[in-house]
């Protein structure tokens, strides 16, 4: 019995939804970066406001209060960097989804894109772990700094999955190139 290849129904709705979701997450990342960067001059201008919210014991455990402020600023910059990496990742994802929507997923560009996404995800995971450890070291009042949630098994699995998918796309691209020359 001959096999019948059924063309899947037009998934435009799903792609539109995915695009909207990516845009929403990107907007949240931009808001986060804006909030973190605008907090820096505020804290540096009026450091007492921050110190008032922290237990005196925590402040004294860091020695000089200016050290605590410095760590706070480093934390904010690290969070901004994490969100920035997230934005680059989402931008790659957006372009990948667009090429899949246009039914041209198996391209050399997408293979490179997926590899970059895997490395970006790895960098985000490592940075997230570092921020988590840093926040824990700074004290309970700085638990909010754990924006990435610290170490995540799902994140590390996602990194491996991205490398595997990049390899799958590489094979798919080679097959498509062969098909392009088939008459």
């Amino acid at each position, binding site marked *: 019995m001959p096999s019948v290849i059924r063309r899947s129904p037009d998934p435009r709705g799903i792609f539109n939804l995915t695009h909207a979701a990516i845009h929403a997450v990107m907007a949240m990342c931009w808001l986060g970066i804006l909030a973190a960067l605008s907090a820096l001059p505020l804290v540096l201008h009026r450091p007492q406001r921050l110190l008032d919210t922290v237990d005196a014991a925590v402040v004294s455990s860091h020695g000089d209060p200016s050290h605590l402020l410095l760590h706070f600023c480093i934390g904010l910059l690290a969070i901004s960097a994490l969100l920035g990496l997230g934005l680059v990742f989402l931008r790659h994802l957006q372009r990948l989804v667009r090429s899949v929507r246009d039914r041209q997923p198996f391209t050399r560009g997408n293979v490179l894109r997926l590899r970059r996404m895997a490395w970006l995800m790895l960098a985000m995971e490592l940075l997230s772990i570092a921020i988590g450890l840093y926040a824990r070291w700074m004290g309970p009042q700085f638990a909010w700094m754990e924006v990435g949630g610290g170490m995540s098994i799902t994140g590390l699995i996602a990194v491996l999955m991205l490398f595997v998918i990049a390899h799958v796309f590489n094979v798919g691209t080679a097959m498509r190139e*062969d098909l*392009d*020359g*088939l*008459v």
Partner: protein
Amino acid sequence: MAIVITLDRMLQQRGMTLSELATRIDITLANLSILKTGKARAIRFSTLDAICRELQCTPGDLLGYDPSRTQDDDC
């Protein structure tokens, strides 16, 4: 690639144009052009069968082998 397509010569001998052949074997002119200019990487048996049927020739009449062209591969 050392494989040489002699479709051009066969068409000339038969007095047939490329577009006429494309219509007869139900293949796009663009695809047949790719085959004629030797840019194709592979050919379906069904395509070969249709060309041989219309040109009344054998696959050997359409394909040749020129070892001196091996170096051109991947260029």
